[in-house]
């Protein structure tokens, strides 16, 4: 494996009496698709929160491209090249799909002079719009650019959720259950998309859809009860007795 | 000195519970039903006027209080049916505007009925004076306020956090549709809750009337304090409202009592005389700003 893009170093997080993460350490190599699996409540989303900056860990460090980001706010981390999707859909409900994605594309253009530009009216440059349309088409939401995000069906919103993260063209993409709530066909399309992206982007994928995980992941880490049980290649993980007992069941 | 300090602490407690009487209804309607009701103070005023009128007519304070509570609950229920229920689904700003309009209307209505000048509402004879406790004398009526305040706090706490109705109300406020889908008639529920809130206002009006002026506009000045209280405590939390009330009561009272004295001890007299009262006046606002700085959702955030 090439050098690590993301290093999670001894990260702990407690909520009152609940230990959601207990000294979790592993690293994500540049270019890989790293899946994070584990039972419900294992702390996967919590870990994504710590990495993305939505929450601060009680202990431990988050190192990204060699830089310690632990104390930085979320938006700075995004500017450094991280993007995430939310497990519980978090989009701009009262904006159109196109506006949603345009915002994401603009957020990527990390020239902050333009974000604070007070004077020039935004006749959003055609390039921006074209790119946004492209992203929508990619997940099969093409042709619905003018629909308000809030009036999409649930599965469609899940797709939009992922597109917003993709459109910031990050170096590291944190996906929290992108497949949840999407139908079989849409899941299929999502898998294909992630597979395609994987050539340019490093991905940390949280997902309960094991078909998708085993098709996409280069390596898999397993959290159980806030502890890292193992990190390894898909076949190793599939065979790991504790993982089978706590998570996969015998069906896998 | 310790004696005085103790008495001041008791005063603070008492003032806090006084505020709690009003904050209780507010946190019920505003915190739990998520409805900004500026006209809360108007219901308090209506309650006090009704209590004054009924007490004067019957000659009995108790009858005055009961009549005020019953009357104001009716007014509250009518208000909810006619105006407020159409506002639950609206944003906070619309609620602000509508209930601000209600304040204007209520004030004028009271002026038309009772005139411009304050009206009389006095404590029953037996409680009008002070009683001796623990070496100092304390106004009997204020002790009653302490008792009523504690009772209301307890009753409300149990009702909201321990009963199913309380759970329905909280559920209805956070996700009305889902609550209905689970079989609760949220519309009727809210009317009842609002009426109860109005009843609490009237209780506050009737209990505070003997200590404060019963006059048009009496609701607005105290409403701000009630808001301060529930914001400090965390909106929607009864426990928070109680703690917030006590905190505001004690800090305000002790600030008024001790600040001038404290400042005198290390500042030149003239400066201290100027600064003391000015600081005491803004103390609770400083307190609120400080608390919100450290805990942006109040001391007991009800929604995580």
């Amino acid at each position, binding site marked *: 494996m090439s050098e690590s893009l993301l290093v999670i170093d001894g990260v702990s997080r407690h909520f009152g009496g609940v230990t959601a993460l207990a000294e979790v350490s592993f690293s994500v190599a540049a270019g890989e698709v790293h899946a994070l699996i584990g*039972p419900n409540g294992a702390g996967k989303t919590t870990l994504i929160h710590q990495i993305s900056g939505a929450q601060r860990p009680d202990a431990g460090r988050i190192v990204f491209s060699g830089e310690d980001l632990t104390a930085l706010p979320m938006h700075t981390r995004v500017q450094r090249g991280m993007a995430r999707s939310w497990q519980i859909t978090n989009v701009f409900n009262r904006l159109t799909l196109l506006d949603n994605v345009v915002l994401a594309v603009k957020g990527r253009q990390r020239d902050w002079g333009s974000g604070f530009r007070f004077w020039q009216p935004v006749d959003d440059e055609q390039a921006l719009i074209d790119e946004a349309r492209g992203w929508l088409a990619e997940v099969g939401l093409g042709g619905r650019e003018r629909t308000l995000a809030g*009036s999409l069906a649930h599965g469609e919103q899940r797709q939009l959720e992922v597109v917003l993260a993709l459109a910031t063209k990050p170096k590291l993409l944190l996906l929290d259950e992108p497949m949840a709530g*999407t139908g079989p066909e849409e899941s299929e399309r999502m898998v294909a998309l992630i597979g395609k992206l994987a050539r340019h982007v490093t991905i940390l994928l949280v997902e*309960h859809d094991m078909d998708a995980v085993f098709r996409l992941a280069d390596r898999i880490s397993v959290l159980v009860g806030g502890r890292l049980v193992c990190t390894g290649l898909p076949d190793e993980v599939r065979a790991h007795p504790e993982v089978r007992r706590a998570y996969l069941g015998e069906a896998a | 000195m310790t004696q005085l300090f103790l008495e001041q602490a008791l005063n603070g407690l008492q003032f806090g519970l006084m505020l709690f009487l009003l904050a209780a209804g507010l946190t019920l309607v505003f915190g739990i039903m998520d409805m900004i009701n500026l006209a809360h103070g108007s219901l308090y005023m209506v309650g006090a006027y009704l209590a004054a009128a009924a007490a004067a007519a019957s000659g009995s304070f108790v009858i005055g209080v009961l009549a005020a509570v019953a009357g104001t609950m009716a007014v509250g229920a009518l208000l909810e049916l006619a105006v407020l229920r159409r506002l639950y689904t609206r944003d906070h700003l619309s609620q602000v505007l509508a209930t601000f309009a209600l304040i204007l209307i209520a004030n004028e209505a009271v002026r038309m009925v009772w005139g411009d000048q304050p009206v009389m509402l006095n404590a029953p004879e037996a409680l009008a004076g002070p009683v001796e406790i623990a070496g100092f004398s304390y106004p009997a009526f204020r002790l009653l306020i302490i008792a009523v305040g504690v009772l209301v706090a307890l009753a409300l706490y149990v009702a909201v956090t321990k009963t199913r109705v309380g759970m329905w109300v909280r559920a209805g406020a*956070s996700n009305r549709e889902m609550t*209905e889908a689970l079989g609760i008639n949220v519309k009727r529920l809210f009317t009842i809750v609002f009426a109860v809130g109005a009843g609490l206002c009237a209780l506050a009006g009737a209990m505070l009337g003997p200590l404060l002026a019963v006059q048009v506009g009496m609701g607005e000045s105290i409403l701000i304090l009630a808001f301060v209280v529930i914001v400090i405590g965390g909106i929607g939390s009864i426990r928070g409202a109680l703690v917030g009330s006590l905190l505001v009561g004690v800090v305000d009272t002790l600030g008024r009592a001790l600040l001038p004295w404290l400042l005198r001890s290390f500042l030149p007299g003239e400066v201290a005389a100027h600064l003391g009262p000015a600081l005491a006046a803004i103390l609770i606002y400083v307190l609120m700003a400080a608390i919100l700085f450290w805990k942006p959702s109040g001391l007991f955030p009800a929604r995580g």
Partner: protein
Amino acid sequence: MNLLEVAGLQLAYGQSQVLFGLDLAVAEGEVATLLGRNGMGKSSTLRAVCGLSPAPAGILGGTIRFAGADIAGWTPDRVARAGIALVPEGRQIFPNLSVRENLVAFAANRRRVAEPWTLERVFALFPRLAERQQNMGNQLSGGEQQMLAIGRALLTNPRLLILDEATEGLAPLVREEIWQCLARLREAGQTTLVVDKYVERLIRLADRHTIIERGRVVWRGTSSELDADHGIWHRYLGV
């Protein structure tokens, strides 16, 4: 005897119509499914049944009968008290109620079932919820919230249980548990209407299936018929 009978249902959100004369029936004691791609109108149908239509004006036509009564136009709380419970998509847990409160607040046994769902039974089904019972709803993980939504619906002891993507976000093991639980419910005579994406699993569980596309029924049949024709899967579900 059909417990639920939807006939010719037409529904619109404002200007845009999403259901065009949809028929659906669920017989007493059976497990039925509603299948289709994303955005085809599954949730809209379920919500209409529960009285949660976008607006009273949203139902443009059709009838909804439940246990013999015409419930179209009823308020959602009335529908619920008549015996329909919904596990909605997106979970819709009450964030400001504790786990325990989420469950007990709505517990009811309106039909005096002999062996009703109780808090203990729900905790036995989802031990994780028992561990978290004092936490607030919004402090749960996504999967825990899903379990809570199911438990909450069960505790109303409904005549008809409706699950809208109830396994979304659940770990494989738990998902499997839920399937087994639904199977047990079915044995106990619980009438159920399911929307989910795991067709294979549903074939084993359910009796009858309805597939919709763009607000219209395109296929209807039994499990064995569906199992036999994978072309249907491919054509309408993209599997």
